[in-house]
């Protein structure tokens, strides 16, 4: 009744191609942004912002990156963790080489490095696909991990082998380092994620994005219709790794504060792949939903016994979490292979016809 597009006429192409063609969607997204930018910083406590919102946003961005590659271009990758690492390490190097440059520029700029690395490891995708590509991206994962450990230059020859975030200010406010408040870091993360999501949605709607989707749906047909597989695939790898790199840089600089190689291991690649598949392949909204699901589920699961007044020891709880995540993934794949985004679409459709479903 309320969610209905009747009466909203599009009188020119520009309206027809808008990101949010329906008025209610525009209102909803506006409301979302107000909640995210105003209500959460104002009402949320440190734990909520630091342990839930910031990781959720960062992983959303990484999931968008992987979704561009896997969901839109159809190339499976298990190297996301390592590409995030490339972003983090290059950002760290740049902060020590250019201490005076604005940290936001460095964070976004570090994405370029991981884009280049991503393009190099994306080259085999021109000849192979499917599981074969999984193995080449795994090669990227393990090789890059080894580089992060072995090449001392990357972590400034620290005794600990870890990268530590220096304190940086922007307009007199401390943005990174231990003294930065969670709210500041949250707002920075949120702004970057919002802008980059907007950019992603426009790339995907545009010529490049449509070329990716043609490659995904049928590469030979796409080639016949004038899409160059070389450019389409490599650009998908580049953009995808760029997003992953920025997410990795944000993860270290705006969330963890320091990182070792373990923060970029293959488990992260899996987790991000889970986010993409659970959220919905080929859906930006799905990336957010998948990221929310995977990052918030353990926290919520951990809180449930406390709410119910049960006492379960930490280890058993952790094991149960693993089992539940595993089981839920299988359950979702069986019941709704298109992910949470598809559920959302069904919900929207139901709203549209409510209260007269026929």
């Amino acid at each position, binding site marked *: 009744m309320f969610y209905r597009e009747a009466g909203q006429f599009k009188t020119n192409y520009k309206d027809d191609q808008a990101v949010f063609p329906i008025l209610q969607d525009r209102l909803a997204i506006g409301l979302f942004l107000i909640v995210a930018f105003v209500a959460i910083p104002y009402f949320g*406590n*440190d*734990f*909520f912002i*630091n*342990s*839930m919102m910031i*990781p959720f946003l960062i992983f959303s961005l990484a999931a968008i990156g992987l979704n561009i590659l896997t969901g839109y271009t159809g190339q499976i990758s298990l190297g996301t963790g390592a590409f995030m690492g490339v972003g983090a390490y290059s950002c760290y190097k740049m902060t*020590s080489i250019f201490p005076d440059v604005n940290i936001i520029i460095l964070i976004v700029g570090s994405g370029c490095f991981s884009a280049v690395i991503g393009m190099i490891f994306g080259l085999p995708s021109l000849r192979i696909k499917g599981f074969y590509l999984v193995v080449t991206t795994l090669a990227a994962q*393990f090789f890059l991990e*080894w580089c992060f*450990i072995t090449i001392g230059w990357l972590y400034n020859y620290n*005794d*600990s*082998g*870890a990268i*530590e*975030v*220096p*304190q940086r200010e922007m307009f007199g406010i401390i943005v990174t*380092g*231990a*003294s930065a408040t969670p709210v500041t870091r949250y707002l920075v993360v949120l702004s970057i994620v919002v802008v980059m999501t907007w950019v992603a949605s426009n790339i995907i709607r545009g010529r490049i994005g449509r070329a990716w989707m043609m490659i995904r749906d049928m590469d030979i047909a796409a080639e016949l219709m004038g899409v160059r597989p070389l450019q389409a695939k490599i650009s998908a790898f580049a953009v995808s790794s760029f997003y992953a790199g920025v997410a990795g840089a944000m993860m270290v600089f705006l*969330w*963890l*504060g*320091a*990182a*070792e*190689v*373990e*923060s970029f291991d293959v488990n992260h690649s899996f987790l991000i792949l889970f986010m993409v598949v659970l959220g919905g392949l080929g859906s930006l909204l799905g990336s957010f939903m998948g990221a*929310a*699901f995977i990052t*918030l*589920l353990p*926290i*919520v699961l951990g*809180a*449930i016994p406390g*709410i119910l007044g049960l006492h379960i*020891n*930490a*280890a058993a*709880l*952790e*094991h149960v979490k*693993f089992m539940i995540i595993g089981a839920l993934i299988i359950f979702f794949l069986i*019941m*709704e292979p298109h992910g*949470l985004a598809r*559920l959302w679409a*069904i*919900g929207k459709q139901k709203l549209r016809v409510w209260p007269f479903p026929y």
Partner: protein
Amino acid sequence: MFKKLILGATAMAMVGGMQIQTASAEEVLYVPSLSYRTGAYAGGGTPIANGFADYMNMLNARDGGIGGLKVVVEECETGYTAQKGVECYEATKGKGALVYNPYSTGITLQLIPKAPVDKIPVLSMGYGLSAAAVGETFPWTFNYPATYWSQMSSILKFIDSQDGGIKGKKIGYIYLVSGYGKEPIPLLENLAKTMGFEVVQFPVAGKEMQNQSSQWLNVRKEKPDWMIMWGWGAMNATAVKEAAKIRFPMDHFIGNWWAGANADLDPVGKAGTGYRSANMAAAGTDFPALQDVIKHVVSKGKSQIEDPTKVGDVLYNRGLFNAVLVAEGIATAQKIAGKANISGSDMRDGLEALDLSAARLKELGLEGFTAPIKGSCKDHAGGGSIFLQQWDGENWKRTSDLIAPQTDLVRPLLEAAAAKYVSDKPEWKTQTCK
């Protein structure tokens, strides 16, 4: 139908997540325990967490807590990953945490810069950043009873006392490739010059820790006189087995104190006879305090330990020792602050003034359990001595006297490392010592 259920459940979960509030109820001494009972390193994490919790629960049951206040130990599962460790830190710091025991060098490194900001000290007991022992530079970080560097210097001192000295010998260093394993390398390279020996490194990647045959082939190629290991988890058992396979003389193979647990050598059994490892706290239950733990906690079924015979294992006692340090820190802090309900900064002062003398150890029912430890504003490691234990095929036997670290060699290097750590952090806050 089920789709609606999922939608509903997701929405509920979101709302539920928002409502997690930090609850600080009545006055207690709140000590979070960042444990890891899961993951590849659970074999080491579980007994430590048990020992830690059991000692605190024993204090609660026997003495009614410390200074009249109950100690609340809340475990948070880190799985030995730095990321989850930080999440645990964020989740628990608001509840009035007194001190953090991260049990992982990776997590410690992440918490060091956070400690001064949140005013909660970090006690990395025998792990973490060695340079953190320099109290002037790291007011909020403690490294009792000894740092990796001083431990390494003790081990080298031991080697120096055997077979006609260390000069001209070749020392192999096999380590887990992580912050933990790489930590002592600068010291090793430095002491190699001063003490006149040669170092060969054998890195073992975490993923490959059960597949070490190439490292040990390299050992066979290089033929070092001694091997020193900085290993953890499944790496230890595999390394000792491989060493036995290539017939490396076992009594020339020395692990650090994280490479000498019962769980490490039980799978090896007889083949590991003669293997040595460092330790800082005695194994076994022949101490009044441990008997109290058995009486008040374990025998009443209040412990998480599954097999009561594992009380007194090397790592169980390690966790218990950590609890002793924390409890002593709390007691000292209460004395200094003149109140029972202390804060994180009181706790810091208490830890800094920690004085675990031989007499005090006897009072606690832990005579001969460990070397005496005395902290100061300058020295946050207490200069603890270590001893070596040897595997006899079934259990660990203590086989050496206390070996003091070579403080004169190590301290200047620690100070240099500390200075390097803060060199790119202009905002870092240090303290001056009288």
